[in-house]
């Protein structure tokens, strides 16, 4: 009894201290993560809904600081090119984290020995690769290293913001109507959490197709029921259109032959020179330049709905006019 009592007297403080230490370290876990970004983040398409959901107009380069080469390449692009088997499984580039309509799952990879965060990951969900942001100061690959769909990113904390710098990703679209980004593109992501709201700013730089950085920022809300998937479903290419089954056919428009150049002028009264974009269109001075040539349509006739979420999430009796393909959530 005596020895048990002695043993007990020795063991109890140790148990207590371990418990205390574990409790304390659990409470102090954000020290390793700075702020916890992990979870399922539901997208809020309160900006650019049509461009992110149904898709942009065929020739809409408004607000894009593109080079002449980017513009020419975009004008040569036909969305039908995505129907050829070789292109059906192309992923969107990493900057579609913000440009796309997707929610996010974010999680950390933890070193099992140190407990430190080795990397943060942003899930792929649909048609996009997982983006891993390494937090262990590893160097970026050399300039000629392989480009991948996920790219290579390193991160650091600046206060409560995770700053990630991404390189080495494949060429893709800045806007999914064919405005290109090259494989020289780099992106800095600033991911900031304020309570249950997440904001991501992407600063995209491309020495080939952009004359100055392109900015886009979006918001998400924490939603444990969002059930975002980490990986995109497997893609199986299939020759769906008979005319595209032959080898060597790539839908395109020859220079000067894109029939949609004037479509936004017809639909929205916007001058063609604005629609074709350029850095000038991003700044307030351009608004003043637009005052004379721009005549707004008398009423909205296309995609007018408030918040284009799933049917039933728009205001009651609010039409969502889809421009010739029918109406969603009709009166």
């Amino acid at each position, binding site marked *: 009894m005596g020895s048990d009592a002695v043993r007990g007297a020795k063991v109890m403080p140790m148990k207590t201290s371990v418990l205390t230490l574990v409790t304390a*370290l659990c409470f102090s876990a954000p020290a390793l993560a700075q702020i916890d970004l992990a979870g399922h983040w539901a997208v809020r398409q309160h900006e650019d809904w049509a461009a992110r959901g149904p898709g942009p107009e065929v020739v809409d380069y408004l607000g894009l600081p593109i080079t002449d080469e980017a513009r020419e390449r975009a004008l040569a692009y036909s969305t039908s090119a995505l129907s050829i088997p070789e292109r059906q499984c192309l992923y969107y580039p990493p900057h579609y984290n913000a440009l796309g309509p997707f929610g996010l799952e974010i999680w950390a990879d933890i070193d099992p020995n140190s407990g430190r965060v080795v990397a943060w990951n942003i899930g792929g969900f649909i048609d996009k690769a997982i983006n891993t942001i390494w937090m262990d100061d590893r160097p970026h690959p050399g300039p000629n290293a392989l480009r991948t769909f996920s790219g290579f990113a390193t991160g650091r904390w600046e*206060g409560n913001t995770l700053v990630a710098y991404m390189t080495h990703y494949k060429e893709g679209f800045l806007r999914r109507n064919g405005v290109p980004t090259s494989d020289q593109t780099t992106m800095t992501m600033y991911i900031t959490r304020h309570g249950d709201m997440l904001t991501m700013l992407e600063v995209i730089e491309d020495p080939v197709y952009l004359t100055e950085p392109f900015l886009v920022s979006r918001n998400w809300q924490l939603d444990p029921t969002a059930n975002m998937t980490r990986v995109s479903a497997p893609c199986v290419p299939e020759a769906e259109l008979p005319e595209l089954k032959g080898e060597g056919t790539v839908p395109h428009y020859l220079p000067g032959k894109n029939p949609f150049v004037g479509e936004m002028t017809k639909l929205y009264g916007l001058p063609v020179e604005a629609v074709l974009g350029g850095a000038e269109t991003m700044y307030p001075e351009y608004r003043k330049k637009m005052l004379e040539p721009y005549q707004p349509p*008398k009423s909205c006739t296309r995609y007018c*709905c*408030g918040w284009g979420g799933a049917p039933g999430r728009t205001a009651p*009796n609010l039409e969502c006019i889809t421009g010739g393909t029918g109406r969603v959530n009709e009166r």
Partner: protein
Amino acid sequence: MKFVAITAVAWLVAVPLFAQGRGAGPTPSTPPQAAKMAAPVDLTGYWVSVITEDWRWRMVMPPKGDYQSVPITADAKRVADAWDPVRDESIGEQCRAYGAAGIMRLPTRLRVSWLDDNTLKVETDAGMQTRLLHFGSWKRDGRPTWQGDSIATWELPRRPGGADNAAEEAQPKFGSLKVVTTNMRPGYLRKNGVPYSAKTELTEYWDLYRGRNGEQWLVVSTAVEDTAYLQVPWLTSPNFRKEPDGSKWDPTPCAARR
């Protein structure tokens, strides 16, 4: 003894977690530090909107009845469908799209300066508006205005490597400006009459980001809550780029029709 030591170490690590707000901060006998002195980031200077998002709804007048991307209610739709900019101008209401819940998404330049140690002044050249962001114990002054009453606080991060508060450092390097605005006159979220009501509460987080080439970007993460005209909070995040000077500052009065 070992127990005491381990416990002490553990709580040294953990306890600062509970020191919310400004961390250890000033002692009770010390007057609170003025917001200007406590600023973790310098937001003053000239900023220009970078309009890469919602271009057709911000850079030009959208058509009547276009409420795209805004989670409006049926009541809001009725108001928006009755929008009449000529009438607005005729009754002196041409600034409805320039109130606090709408102004930051308009193409504009901002001139940010300290009015006094606890008031940050934000001027816009579009519509020539002035927002006053009040820190400390400022009390609202009653009458609703376009820019409403804005209460500001600095939100400081925890210090890396410990559950501590950055306010304990001599001068924190990072942090957000949180602004909550109420008591606004009813106005428009967009120039084409998409409304917000007098019940609106606007919450903003102003975050300053530094680019790789020395650029400075300002993102204002914004939640507009309006039980009358919005089904859910409207979340947006307008972007601004720092300008070296005010050479492009171009004050222009409110306009309802363009």
